[in-house]
């Protein structure tokens, strides 16, 4: 099983845009730890809404930047179909446990499709799932970004042998299951305010150490019990199904022979030179 090339090119500008958005994203997720009572943001009821809007805008910009130069029809169709599977898995898992079998698809898909397409797959699967389950809300941009990172990370893992890859991806699935929960709690943790249990609430005036300790308690109390099963589920699914699914994906990528046409954005050219390619 030889690795396949990435189906969408990763450019230098992609790296810069991704780094900048990741930094803003990290700030948007971790701002409760960074503010103090004298900051312009002190975590009253209106300010947390700034970040969902901001992350939504930046998410759009990032998607536009990653797909600049055009995704060809094959990439669009492949991403669409895989995102549909992710969305369907998300609909099936909607409910109490939030076990999210979707992560399994994002991890394996990201691994095969490469960095750009891996990120896009994660983000689009969330959008599709959100449209289907009607879970569109202030959390959607955060989920898009976090799941996009999961797909990107799977593509960034080092290349290893077939058996090692299975275990590597399983371990990665377990880790991301936990991290995703830890990160996704952060955006609404400040909202809880006084309704959180004692010693687990958010207060902008507390020093960083206390904040982290409180969040640790909050995470352990509420979320760890959910995130661990999710991580384990992803890892088990990867272990069981990685081989056939990776094979199927790689075969499809090879058959589609992505990227045989030079990407128009790379070479200086006039606009829309190959827009009518299908008609020639």
């Amino acid at each position, binding site marked *: 099983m030889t690795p396949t090339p990435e189906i969408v090119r990763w450019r230098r500008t992609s790296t810069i*845009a991704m780094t*900048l958005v990741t930094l*803003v994203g990290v*700030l948007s997720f971790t701002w409760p730890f*960074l*503010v*103090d009572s004298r*900051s*312009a943001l002190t975590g009253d009821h209106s300010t947390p809404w700034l970040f969902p809007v*901001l992350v939504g805008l*930046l998410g*759009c*910009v990032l*998607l*536009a930047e990653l*797909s*600049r*130069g*055009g*995704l*060809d*029809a094959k990439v*669009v*169709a*492949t991403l*669409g*179909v895989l*995102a*549909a599977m992710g*969305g*369907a898995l998300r*609909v*099936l898992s*909607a*409910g*109490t*446990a939030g076990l999210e079998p979707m992560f399994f698809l994002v991890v394996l898909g990201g691994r095969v499709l490469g960095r750009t397409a891996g990120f896009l797959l994660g983000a*689009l699967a969330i959008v*599709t799932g959100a*449209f289907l*389950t*009607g879970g569109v809300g202030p959390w959607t941009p955060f989920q898009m970004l976090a799941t996009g990172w999961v797909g990107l990370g799977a593509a960034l893992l080092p290349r290893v042998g077939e058996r090692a890859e299975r275990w590597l991806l399983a371990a990665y699935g377990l880790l991301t299951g936990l991290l995703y929960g830890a990160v996704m709690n952060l955006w609404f943790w400040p909202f809880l305010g006084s309704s959180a249990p004692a010693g687990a609430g958010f207060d902008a005036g507390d020093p960083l150490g206390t904040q982290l300790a409180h969040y640790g308690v909050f995470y*352990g*109390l509420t979320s*760890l*019990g*959910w995130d661990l*099963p999710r991580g384990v589920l992803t890892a088990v699914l990867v272990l069981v*199904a990685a081989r*056939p*699914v990776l094979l199927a*994906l790689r075969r*499809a990528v090879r058959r589609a022979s992505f990227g045989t046409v030079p990407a128009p*954005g790379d070479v*200086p050219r*006039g606009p829309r*030179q190959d827009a009518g*390619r*299908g*008609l020639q």
Partner: protein
Amino acid sequence: MSPADRLSRPRLLHPVAWWAWGLLLAAAASRTTNPVYLLLLLAVVGWVVVQRRETGASSTMGVFLAIALTAVAIRVVMTILLGSAIGGRTVLVDLPEVPLPDWMAGVRLGGPVQLEALLDAVYHGLQLATILVCVGACNVLADPRRLLRYVPATLYDVGTAVVVALTYVPQLADDARRVRTARRLRGHDGRGVREVARLVVPVLESSLDRSLALAASMESRGYGRVTLAQKEHRRSVALTMVGLGGVLVGVYGLLDSSTPAALGLPVLAVGSACAVAALLTGSRRDRRTPYRRDPWRAPETLVIASSAVAAVALSTAAARDAAGIVPPQVPATWPVVSLPLAAALLAPLLAGVLSPRPPRRAALEDRAREVAQA
């Protein structure tokens, strides 16, 4: 001319109007867990779909309904098995509890099943079902593929992928059913976790095949990459970078109290403006010419306005914490219903009257009427 055509002759309503109508209703549903309001919304959507569904339009509504019912069922079963954070006073059944290790705090297997928790699960499930039905109604009333033309040029490819995904989900269920039937014909019983797992690879394979066929048909219809002229490309990249950098500095300025005040909000605003400009660069140059243009006339605006009434009414009530929007779970009581709000939720019914009749269906109806009169 029939009275239904007084506002507009039979034609397909602009797809954006139907989607805005449905998504506004979905947004309204996402603000409340009151079962009465949710059932009202379901009835409204159902009636409008019955009134304005084009003959031969996709029959995805059934699939959406099935998914909606499954979602409710899964939620209820999960609540019974795993308990919920709601708690409650009225214990219906006391299931034997399976002891779990301490570090699994938050997960409980078995134990008492309370009426309140169950009702909460049903309400939230019903909310999800309503939202799903609204999206399903959008799909039935306006084929999502017709929306392809209205995504801004910079997000065109990504938007296309999403539309492909949304269209493909019901076919996924079809694929799964077909593979399962094939396995049954070969003598497998088609039940159990193992059998479900066997579906994964064939469904994945057929999906990927389908994606290639779809790509081929898109290319043969002239779907190509869109690139900007180099000058604009450079400007757009520069705008993106400046915008992202500005947002980063602005957020940092907002969070760090030692930076001067000028570094916070103003820089953030400038950065966001640049980011928006980057998104819009090239949108105006988009010279895609649709084969059949969808006009935007009075019915479109009226249809959106009718559901905006419901969405705004519910959102305002929710923002004011009005009674009955999110009925209290403990103790379980009959939810409060406000009559003005219920009336506002009925306003979207007007879409079924004000929107033009879809053409094929109108032709059939008119012929049927002529036959009846003759």
